[in-house]
């Protein structure tokens, strides 16, 4: 119980860090912290397999991907956010977000879930039961996720394939001249 509180507070701090720090790299690192914190909470909630999956897939694969892209795109640049030109966007977002969040929190606070009398089996959340579910009744959903991952792979290929005739460019041109089809907008 205390563990959840501590981890929760750290995790929330990391989450806030994700959205307030200036450097995308720092955001990504903070997000790694959030996912690791989540994995620990999963463990406390007896979702062992998911805790492992969270670490491997999220903190491992996904966050590495994020970090990679962040460093690729912002390498050598001081990524400072310019002034927010959308008037009131920040205020309105924070206020609506808080309203929704507080509303949901009130909902949760007033909800008293039924507590089951039976005790939790010791294997709950382990590899065996979740495997039984995934390869049993929910097999098609697993197949669906597999198809999505395939889609993701195709997507990366399709989207960043270089045009046949033009040589790939590894580095952005100074004035942002178009890379592939001459439609790029020139920016100082």
């Amino acid at each position: 119980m205390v563990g959840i509180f501590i981890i929760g507070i750290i995790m929330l701090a990391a989450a806030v860090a994700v959205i307030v720090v200036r450097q995308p790299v720092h955001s990504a690192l903070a997000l790694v912290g959030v996912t690791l914190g989540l994995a620990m909470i999963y463990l406390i909630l007896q979702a062992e397999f998911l805790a492992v999956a969270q670490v491997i897939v999220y903190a491992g694969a996904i966050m590495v991907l994020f970090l990679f892209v962040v460093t690729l795109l912002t390498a050598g640049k001081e990524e400072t956010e310019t002034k927010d030109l959308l008037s009131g966007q920040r205020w309105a977002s924070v206020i609506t977000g808080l309203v929704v969040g507080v509303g949901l929190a009130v909902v949760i606070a007033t909800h008293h879930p039924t507590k089951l009398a039976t005790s939790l089996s010791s294997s709950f959340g382990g590899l065996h039961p979740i495997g039984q579910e995934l390869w049993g009744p929910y097999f098609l959903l697993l197949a669906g996720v597999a198809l999505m991952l395939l889609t993701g792979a195709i997507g990366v290929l399709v989207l960043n394939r270089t045009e046949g005739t033009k040589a790939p460019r590894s580095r952005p041109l100074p004035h942002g001249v178009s890379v592939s089809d001459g439609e790029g907008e020139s920016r100082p």
Partner: protein
Amino acid sequence: MQGLTEILLLPLFGAVTIGAFKSLAPKRYAGIWASVLLVASFVLAVLADVHLAELAAGHRVISGTLFNWATGFGPKIAWNIYLDPLSGIWLLVITGVGALIHIYSNGYMHDDPDRGRFFGYLNFFIFSMLLLVLAGNLLVLLIGWGLVGLASYLLIGFWYQRPSAVQAAKKAFVMNTIGDVAILIGLALLYFRFHTVTYAGLFSTFAHATPNTAYFEWTAVLLFIGAMAKSAQFPLNGWLVDAMEGPTPVSALIHAATMVTAGVYLMARLYPLLRLAPDVAYAIAAIGAFTAIYAASSAFFQQDIKKVLAYSTLSQLGYMFLALGVGAYTAGVFHFMTHAFFKACLFLAAGSVIHALGGEQDLNQMGGLYKKMPWTTASFLAATLAISGIPPFAGFYSKEAILGQVFNSGHGLLWIVGVITAGMTSFYMFRLFLLTFFGAPRNKKLYDHAHEAPAVMTVPVVILGILAVIGGFFGSWLNGWLAPVFRMYPGASHAALEAGPVFGTVITVGLAVLAFFIAYWLYVLKRTAAKAGISTWPGKWMLAAYGVDTGWRNVAILPIQVVGTWFRDRIDQGILAAVVGVANGIWLWAEDLRPVQSGYVRRYGLSIMVGLGVILAYCLTRV
């Protein structure tokens, strides 16, 4: 179904084949083919009516279902076909007069390079009109109603090279759309209350309904607005005169004989509804009477031969609505029938004149044509006598039937308006007739080239002329024929034809004859030019020349004329402006909303978030 399907589908078949083979077959075949189909349709229509007559008086209905339109959810809706004596009359007139006009068009459109398209449209119009009158429920009627509007739009704008024609077509479309929407709402009100749209179903419900409730009043008003738009009743009359931009046979067929009477048909068909909404019925009568006199006064100074006829059509339609409004249903239908004969004759004869003069429609360029065009002149004269209500021509009987019943039902004011209009009708029609065919030729060059129309045009005109002479004698037959329709409903005591007071007849005919003499004196003896009086303040010249008439004119005609002109300019424009204004308003409003769609993803996200907050709040308050 006694050939009803064939009657309906022959013109459609014609339209489709003409459309498909327009560029393949020689052009003259289009007209012949269209006419042949329509004559066949007419023969079938006669057979169907004969069959109808053979049925017992109380059961004169042929009904059937082409196919089920929708069954499954909600009430069953089918394409019902329904022929009773009322639609039988319309059926005969549409196919009969339609066939004559088709034949006539073979001559009239002879030199038009695009006549394949013309006949395709014309056949399509006939199909739509037949669908309208043969409909067994209001939904099919509405579809026919919309399609005739479309056909009318296409035919008014037939000569799309003329900007005025395109403009006129647009105007007709807009005004008709107002009516269509009104009728749609009315239909919706009926359907969603009674869960049926068939005549039989609705009428059986009406029989037990409480009259004079707001529901029936509103429904009747909405349906009447639809009828007003289609039949060009004040204030939705502006489009009809402009519609004369279409070819003359179109004016004869659509804008005189058939389509514009669709409103009359609708009101006659829904007479049980009018019975439930007596206030609306009175309003119909009043608007009809006002349209009659207003249009008649407007016709006085027209310079265009077709425009005079257009105003007279308006005026006569006003009579029909007057009849329906006071409950004289049979008289209204009777007048529709005779009007179809004489007005089609007038238009076709006018078409012959225009044809002979190489497209000239200005009265100032005509005159003395009776020597060159004897057949046309004779037919035109017969029809003019008919419309003026001179006994024993057709219009006399039908108009007397209407006025008599207006008087009998105690609508004194409306009766007076009707009588005065009858006199005015006589005046402007004889003015038109005399200016066109008598007096000295005003344009020598055109006159020299003028010639009698070919037989293919003259014969239909003469046939219609004969009908205009004898049409009135069908009155008693019509009375018996329509009796089962209008007696189906209790309380329709005035539906049958009645005789009015003798003094009424004397006054009406006297006024008509007097008007003829005035016209004769003015335009033949005094040789007044057609355009006299229009450039100056109207009536100034009259004041100087004929002191006797001045007071009468000042008191009766001038105000109406002034008001009429004012209305024609303002209300007409006003309605168009309102439609345009609404459109522009929507446009501007939409333009104002566009910046909300700012292109910024974060704004879009915020919109989602705000929406989420609202929905969440809503959900939480509902528990």
